[in-house]
């Protein structure tokens, strides 16, 4: 990794007013949540916490994806990548530095969200739930940053890259649901069922490459605490870390094979 490159990306984030935009999005999410929470007939706090957590999570992901995509594509379009790679920075170091920089932005963002929730509802939140929610959100943002860098390096159109990364995120949030449906599909012995059986096998194979974002950063943790013993810090770190590394290595492989 290269410190100068990390600093370069972080400065470009400030220059692009991405931090300011994300702050605005957080403020908008919290305001909406407070408004909706105050109009709830009971459990107003729980209402506002769930809405704030969920809205900030999605707003943060969208902001991170859009910023990372356009930032990466601009590096290519303005030939900055050519310049950077002409310096004594290896291609793996380039990818590592870029993902680290975007990961830092994601971490700051998630940290800010946790602080906002704690500042507003600290005395009424389950702290174990808030901590795990924040940590898993950090992992989610790092993972999404890595995915965006991967798609950003591979796809030449910024719009397509953003859309594909958003689709990847949505799929990652829904994959558990799809697997559940696949597991509960009744099977017979006809030709149709055999075809379905193989299709479900293919789907199982696809799900191997999709992170289970539906299991982490659950807004119910904020109001009920961590009641699901299956998901803990170990799962969050291993799952998020392995997937982020897969995407980083895949991006490095892609960049190493590219001719400039």
């Amino acid at each position: 990794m290269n410190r100068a490159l990390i600093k370069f990306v972080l400065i470009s984030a400030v220059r692009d007013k991405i931090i300011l935009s994300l702050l605005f999005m957080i403020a908008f999410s919290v305001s909406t949540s407070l408004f909706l929470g105050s109009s709830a007939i009971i459990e107003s706090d729980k209402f506002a916490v769930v809405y704030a957590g969920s809205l900030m999570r999605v707003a943060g992901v969208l902001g991170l994806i859009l910023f990372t995509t356009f930032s990466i594509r601009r590096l290519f379009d303005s030939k900055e990548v050519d310049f950077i790679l002409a310096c004594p920075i290896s291609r793996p170091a380039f990818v590592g530095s870029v993902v680290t920089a975007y990961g830092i932005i994601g971490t700051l963002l998630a940290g800010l969200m946790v602080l906002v929730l704690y500042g507003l509802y600290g005395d009424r939140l389950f702290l174990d739930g808030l901590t795990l929610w924040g940590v898993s959100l950090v992992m989610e943002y790092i993972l999404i940053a890595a995915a965006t860098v991967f798609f950003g390096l591979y796809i030449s159109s910024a719009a397509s890259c953003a859309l594909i990364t958003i689709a990847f995120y949505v799929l990652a949030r829904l994959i558990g649901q799809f697997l559940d449906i696949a597991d509960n599909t009744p099977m017979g012995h006809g030709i149709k069922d055999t075809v379905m059986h193989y299709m479900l096998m293919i789907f199982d194979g696809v799900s191997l490459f999709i992170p289970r974002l539906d299991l982490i950063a659950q807004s119910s943790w904020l109001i009920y605490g961590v009641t699901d013993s299956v998901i803990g810090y170990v799962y969050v770190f291993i799952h998020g870390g392995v997937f982020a590394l897969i995407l980083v290595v895949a991006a490095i492989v892609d960049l190493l094979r590219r001719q400039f």
Partner: protein
Amino acid sequence: MFTKHTVFIFQTALILLFAVNIAVWSYARDKQAVWLNVPPPPTYETIKSITLGDTQFGYRTIGYMLQNVGDFGGKNTSLRDYDYEALGKWFWLSDKIDPQAHYVPFLAAYYFGASRDKDDLSYIIDYLVEVGQRPGRWRWLVQAFYIALRKQEDPDRAIEIAELLENHIDPRRPEWSYRLRALTLSKIGEKETAYILMRQLVQKGYKTMHPNEINYMIGYICKDLAEFSKDDPLCNRYRNRP
């Protein structure tokens, strides 16, 4: 360069389009969206998909929808006009998403439970009975009991609910909740059964219950159920008091 003729054509077209717009506006000006009553609920899987797996967000959204359903365009809908069967399905859906929350049970009990239609109230009672049997949720069972007895005027159903309340899993609840069945039975004339139940409660609870509660029950047994308790030694002290 555009000729004057081209400019004239476009200007005329603009005026004509405005005229068409005014006509369309006049047609739609007084038309209002019509409420087609409570919509049929989606499946649990649909809610999970719509909310990207964040079911708690889905629960709160459903709760908010139920709180405001029927209020549209500055108008309110009378409770008798709601489709309670559909409402009941929404309650069950929300219960599947979050069985811990009090939000939808509260709406069911205190808002939709205000309906005067006895058939409609069955959906509310069934839902509250299910929710109320869980630990820490006995108050919804009491609410179901109240609606069944006072609004639906179905003492048999109320007695069934009171029995569930009596045997509730949650030991931390007020002592009066133990004697609702006996009191209801007494009210509908089943005084002998009421006496037996009340006597059992005194027997079981005299060590743990508050003395005031015990005294109330002894008073009820000896005064209101006097025809069955005349030979009961429990009443000797009650009758001989100064």
